[in-house]
């Protein structure tokens, strides 16, 4: 049994028993519970919440080179508490960190992955000033906020260094940051910063390309975000041309119809939670990816806001062949609105 397998089991002990994607459906025994109202507070909540079982700092960027070539970049830091006890010092910390980075072009999707133990400084998140890092990958702020960040990562065959900047406040998802994930009441704390403008440089295929674009940061933490019967999700973040942002997700269940949720974010940053019956998400095109069939083309409708669009991936093979594999890649939006965004699909066997 390889060491990697070992981490897999540690990070997501229930995964082997078939409970939800990456074990997110297993019990929360002993960990801090997610309860309403969320009462999020910044900059405190930009930092880590070690009492909760899992947490992520998730940045996706839709980028364009000077000649108009499209790129996508992903920077993700996951934190997992190995046990519910308070964090100990040094190696005994019990926290494990995992980093994913990806760079997508129309014909290649490059991925890197790294792991770290907590407690020793190899990975972590600090506020004042804000800093999230694992190995030589980092997301660094200039003050205790997240309004201006430098985001950098490097894999064997790619690297990027991006400056993201916005004057908007973070947007709270769900009800003031309390985001429900199932009819049974599973939930997470969830906020986003979807308004970043990006400029920076990527290195790929031996060339350096100056890029600009838009980026979206998701922050989410929970101890049990999925119900036991939920097997995976399809998640969209959309930057529309008129400045509005849309977040939508569909949690698939093995026994029930999918659970839909989302947020309409007006160009000024005002969020409107979307109820399940306000959303329609329909797969329209499938492609074989990594030996399985994935719905890479979608029809998305939110009639109350006049949204009726089709999405198409920049690269249908945006497969993250990491320890927990999933699909994550840039998409383009056409129809009632034009725009760009990111699609994430997990739990497809």
């Amino acid at each position, binding site marked *: *049994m*390889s*060491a*990697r*397998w*070992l*981490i897999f*089991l*540690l990070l997501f*002990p229930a995964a*082997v*028993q078939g409970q939800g994607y990456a074990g997110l459906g297993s019990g929360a025994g002993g960990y801090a519970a997610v309860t309403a109202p969320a009462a999020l507070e910044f900059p405190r909540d930009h930092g880590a919440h070690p009492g909760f079982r899992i947490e992520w700092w998730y940045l996706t960027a839709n980028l364009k080179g000077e000649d108009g070539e499209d790129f996508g970049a992903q920077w993700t830091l996951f934190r997992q508490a*190995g*046990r519910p006890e308070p964090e100990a010092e*040094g*190696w*005994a910390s*019990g926290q*494990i960190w995992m980093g994913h980075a990806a760079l997508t072009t129309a014909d290649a999707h490059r991925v890197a992955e*790294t*792991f*770290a*133990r907590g407690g*020793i*400084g*190899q990975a972590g998140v600090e506020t004042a000033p804000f800093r999230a*890092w694992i*190995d*030589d990958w980092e997301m660094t702020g200039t003050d205790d906020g997240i309004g201006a960040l430098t985001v950098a990562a*490097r894999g*064997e065959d790619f690297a990027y260094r991006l400056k993201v900047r916005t004057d908007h406040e973070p947007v709270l998802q769900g009800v003031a940051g309390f985001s429900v994930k199932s009819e049974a009441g599973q939930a997470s704390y969830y906020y986003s910063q979807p308004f970043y403008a990006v400029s920076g440089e990527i290195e790929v295929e031996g060339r350096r390309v100056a890029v600009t674009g838009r980026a979206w940061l998701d922050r989410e933490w929970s101890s049990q975000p999925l119900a036991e019967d939920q097997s995976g999700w399809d998640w969209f973040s959309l930057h529309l041309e008129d400045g509005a942002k849309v977040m939508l997700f569909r949690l698939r269940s093995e026994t029930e119809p999918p659970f839909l949720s989302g947020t309409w974010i007006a160009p000024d940053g005002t969020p409107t939670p979307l109820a399940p019956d306000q959303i329609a998400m329909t797969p329209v095109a499938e492609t074989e990816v990594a030996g399985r069939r994935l719905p890479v083309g979608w029809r998305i409708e939110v009639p109350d806001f006049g949204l009726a669009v089709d999405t198409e991936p920049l690269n249908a093979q945006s497969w993250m062949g990491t320890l927990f594999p999933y699909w994550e890649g840039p998409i383009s939006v056409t129809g009632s609105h034009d725009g760009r965004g990111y699609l994430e699909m997990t739990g497809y066997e």
Partner: protein
Amino acid sequence: MRALVVLRTLLAHWRRHPVELATLLVGLAVATALWSGVQALNAQARASYDRAAAVLGGDVLSTVVAADGQRFPLEDYVALRRAGWKVSPVIEGDMRRADGSVRVLGVDPVTLPPAAGSLDIGEGAERLTQFLTPPNLALAAPETVARLGGAQDLPPLAESADLPPDTLVVDIAVAERLLDAPGRLSRLLLAPGETRALPAALAGRLRVEAPRETGDLDRLTDSFHLNLTAFGFLSFVVGLFIVYSAIGLAFEQRKPMLRTLRACGVSARMLTGVMVGELVGLALVAGLAGVVAGYAIAASLLPDVAASLRGLYGARVPGSLSLAPAWWAAGIAISVGGALFAAAGSLWRAWTLPLLAPAQPQAWLQAQRRGLRLQGALAAAIGAGALAALVFGDGLVAGFAVMGGLLLAAALLLPSVLAGVLSLGARGARRPMVQWLWADGRQQLSGLSLALMALLLALAVNVGVGTMVDSFRRTFTGWLDQRLAAEVYLTAADAEGAQAVALWLDARPEVRARLPIWNVEGRLRDWPVEIYGFRDDPTYRDNWPLIATLPEAWDRVAAGEAALVSEQLARRLNLALGETVTLPSPQGPWPVEVAAIYSDYGNPEGQVMVAVDALTARWPEVDRRRLALRVAPEAAAALVTDLRAAFPGVEAVDQRALKDLSKRIFERTFTVTVALNALTLAVAGIALLTSLLTLSNLRLVQLAPLWAMGVTRRRLAAIEMGKALALAALTALAALPLGLAVAWVLTAVINVQAFGWKLPIFLFPGQWLTLLGMALATAFLAALWPAWRLRRASPLTLLQGFSNER
């Protein structure tokens, strides 16, 4: 079809001579057994070194280590990771426990590169999670789990078949606690593909070390295994003498049968082919028995070998045998190969057998002279080769070439020497019977010479090894008295514990001096080396076993300007007095002068002794747990008892117990050598028996005329016995100088190359007498049956001696 008939005819011979068949099979089986037994021991030990080296991909992954070989701070690891280096941390060390130490390997499974191999934890998610979360899990080989199971000071144990014995693989958080090394790391495993130079901030303190295909253990124990191999080979060669004699005997006896078969139209090709087939069949049977016996020998010697490897080298070899199928195949192959080699002469003669028997060659004397001259020339050539190897050669292989050449040349010369002695005797003889006796002795020599050579080799090696072991024992005992001059030695659990003990000792009036024995481990020109710090004290000045020294060496070492260097290290690195050796310290390279060289028997690692203040100044992390105490000898035992009562965590041992332990390890080291020696002598005895049996049949032709002239069978038997004893005694006498030469090669050449130390030779005449007795006893036992057969031979048999059947 015809081949089958021929085979059945040939095999009929063995039915009529079951004892000869048994001798052949036993000889071949014994030779195979000794050889494959030794190979099994070596294979077992080597496999466990490889296993130890391969743990965590040590054989394929580069590592980052501290330049001074010490542990380094965790922050260095984090700094490398933050610079993008794919490294994974390891803490390792020995954990001292009441029943011996355990090697602890702490790993971080989260960053462990896939090339580091897999940790075989077994099935079930539960166990995997347990490894990382308290109370954690410790992985160990099944036999280690059986031995350590239930220990209170260790995490729960889980079996992992790939690990070497007495090794625990635990999470790094656990290792840090078990080894009392918070925030320290031993090395970093480097994922393949990293080619950058270390960041400037770390480059001074850390360095990248290429993967080692062979671990230190492999190199350090090489000589031990080469010794074993040499003895195994010697036993095999001696065993082949038996096979040669047995096959020769069978050929002589079957000559009429072979002629008849040829006369009946069986071609020489078919006859030889069937004989080869017969031989291969017999060799397969004997080989199978041999490897089984070899397995038994190895299994019974393995605990001693494992104990001495552990005592000498700290190598952990499992106490139970597990052998690859290749080993069995190799054992049987060497049996077949050996048999064919030993039978080559007989087979050649069968191939070229003339259909009609020629007249009995009376000119045997001439033939013998020619043979002896040839052998003498060969011996001279081989002797010259051995001499050249001695003068120009370097290394252990050259040492064994000297030894092999010496033995072979001496063996080849033996018949000439014996013939010379016999012709000298004949010259002085007047009475006809005595003249015949001498002459007949010379005639017999040709047939017996091979067996006598085997006896010579076995005896000489016995003398040589005996002399070496006893010289070593005497030297070692005296050396132990010098080295272990302090009365009490103690080890605390940690530095604070040692401090507390020191305070407690200051209040004890019987403690005359308290001497630190602090040390660090390092590497010098890629060899492991121990650097000890000592406090200037008469204990050292008066007792330390110096081999060579500069004037005022002790003062200069005490002043921190110079160092004492062990003999092994001096030889390995070619260091002479007054030269400078540069020690890698955390504060940078530290050049010191070699002020004296001391003997350090039994230690595979090189050793350097420096003033303790100089050591702590350059190695602040030095292990400060050990102390030596000078107390009145009669108060030592009571002090140890009090110490143990006051500090349960402290290991205190008095000098006598330590000496006993050292001597026990020492004795076990030579158990194998002595056992192989005894077996070799037994094999030589069997060879002699076979040869005499062969001759007793052939010699009826020579003895029948004497019987016809009135010499009684009883007298003839006594004469035969006397001659066998006399030849054995002559051989034993020849073996004595040869044995001393072997002892000299062993101590002055092989030991120096193999272990790095030179021993003074002491002579033990009592041992020689014993050996002479053993040679005579061997010859007596071997000659007993042929003599008895002669005495009981029917007159008809003797009369047949005239019938010229041949």
